[in-house]
């Protein structure tokens, strides 16, 4: 049932995440409006489908939550483990956005990590705990130091503890800047920036050769045990196009190699990442 070609149990599973660009936020500026028109926002409307009316369509170029929603659905179509929202700088409040994105997806994990901008890990952790409850176990973020009174474990026990590399907090998943190094007991996902890696222009991955080259390149460190997966950073200027291409062209190749799931097996982020249910601390 696993892997399309049944290469046996020796194939290591790759974990994939996508990091959303940090938009200028509610209100934004002219640049974000132009980007939305040509890219992400113009092609997606909240709620999707025929249910939405003309007013929604008219406003979609000025308002860009639809761009986030579209990226989230694309990542879920690609069977990604989770979506990561940066917390630094101006822009919408990340946890509120993740709660909204939980409404447009069904399985995709939803993650925010504490940044250097002063979003206190404790406050973020409380927000992530609420998100975990409301999304039935799809949240990840800073480890909760002390469970709040009245806290009851949800479907995944506790949000998956995820932090950036270099921190000292306990973590089940560590997100590395560019090159990560696997370590026992922790999943390490390295960032993969489409622009920096030369996949900035639209259509790069449309070439069969380049899609295969990318699949091979991504898979090698995972199979050698150097890494557990990647956080992809699509080119924001290309709208959702870069992630679309990746999901359409690279994901099937990774599935053929047996290193990427062909369906979600569970509902919680913990299940996607193959992490154990946390044991009580008392």
């Amino acid at each position, binding site marked *: 049932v696993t892997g399309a070609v049944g290469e046996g149990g020796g194939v290591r599973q790759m974990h994939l995440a996508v990091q959303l660009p940090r938009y*200028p*936020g*509610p*209100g*934004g*500026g*002219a640049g974000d409006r132009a980007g939305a028109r040509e890219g992400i926002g113009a092609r997606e409307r*909240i*709620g999707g489908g025929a*249910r*939405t*009316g003309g*007013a*929604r369509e008219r*406003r979609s170029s*000025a*308002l860009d*939550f639809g761009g986030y*929603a579209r990226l989230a659905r694309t990542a879920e179509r690609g069977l990604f483990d989770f979506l990561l929202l940066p917390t630094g700088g*101006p*822009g*919408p*409040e990340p*946890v*509120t*956005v993740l*709660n*909204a*994105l*939980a*409404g*447009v997806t069904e399985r995709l994990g939803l993650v925010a990590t504490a940044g250097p901008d002063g979003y206190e890990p404790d406050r973020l952790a409380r*927000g992530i705990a*609420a*998100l975990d*409850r*409301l*999304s*039935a176990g799809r949240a990840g973020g800073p480890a909760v130091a002390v469970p709040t009174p009245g806290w009851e474990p949800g479907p995944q026990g506790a949000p998956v503890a995820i932090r950036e590399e270099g921190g000292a907090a306990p973590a089940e998943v560590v997100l590395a800047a560019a090159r990560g190094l696997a370590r026992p007991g922790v999943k390490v996902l390295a960032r993969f920036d489409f622009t920096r890696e030369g996949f900035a222009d639209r259509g790069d991955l449309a070439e069969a050769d380049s899609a295969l080259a990318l699949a091979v390149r991504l898979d090698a460190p995972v199979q050698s045990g150097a890494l557990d997966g990647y956080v992809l950073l699509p080119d924001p200027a290309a709208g959702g196009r870069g992630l679309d291409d990746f999901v359409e062209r690279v994901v099937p190749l990774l599935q053929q190699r047996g290193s990427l799931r062909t369906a979600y097996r569970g509902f919680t982020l913990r299940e996607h990442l193959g992490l154990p249910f946390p044991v009580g601390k008392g």
Partner: protein
Amino acid sequence: MPAETPSPVPPPLSADSPSAASAPGSYRRTRTLHLAAAIDGQPKEPAGYYVELARLAERGALDFVTLGGRAGAEPDALAVLARVAPATDRIGVVPVLTAASGPPAELALGLATLDWVSQGRAGWAVAAPEDEEAGGGALGAAALRPADERAEARWRAADDVVAAVALGWDGGGPRPPQGRPVIAVDATGPAARATAARHADIAFVRAADQEQADRIRTELRRLTAQVGRDPDRLLVFGELSIDLGGGELGPEPGAETVPVADGTGGVRFSGGPVDLAELMARWHRSGAVDGFHVRPVEPRRDLERFVNGTAALLQHRGLFRSFHPGATLREHLGLRHPAGSRLAVTGGAVS
């Protein structure tokens, strides 16, 4: 299709209503009835439950739903409504949040983000900070000050927070699509009325009869004019707990279902959906209220009966809209978007 269904008869205004003499030259406001509902509950599966109730309210073309603000209520009202927003299309989403929980900038950003993910459908029902002296508190059994003084102090504190949040929306952070999300204040008590007059778009009033509602509305309009705002910009919603589990009383000659105090400072209506429609039409016609905020006692049962019974009947009589002609909460309420909001100015650049 008409943009909005007006009342078939010219709406009578109460004799002392200042709106009879509202600014000449400004367009004449149609007295549209507005309806909103609380969707509080204690569900096992919160997300599905709240989405279900919000969609039900949206089918009834209600202006907005509120969540939170009651003992034992959903603790993450803003998070839940952010979840509800993309699962709905038109209905306003208004969390009840205390005007003290955290720095105003966080409150402003959270609400701006709710406005963003809902594409301009967010509001904020302001709750005053907890009364720390009540019930003994840390200072002993007897409160040090009389209750009305304490209420005034709490609302003075809330007023500062609301002002700071509004300031945040206007310039300090990301601009919400509506410019300012809609602000609602429970103005039943005198202490809250100054804040309602200064900042609110909507005042909730827990009145047991239309005379009381009308008195408070008149007072609110006076205060609103006093601070230099157009009193027509403050909509007064009668707030009723509704128990629609019983039968109708209406057909009995002379029978009239009246709301009664529910023992927690609220006002409860018990009767049938048709009785409730009669009461709403009567209060609205008299000019005592612009709309109603209902709190279903048993949400699944009572909101369903309210939407399919009461609201449907009011729609049938041309007193309430049958669809949302606009897309934003401000549009539903007939309130302008503040100057500078993205929906008010097309192509307006933001620094």
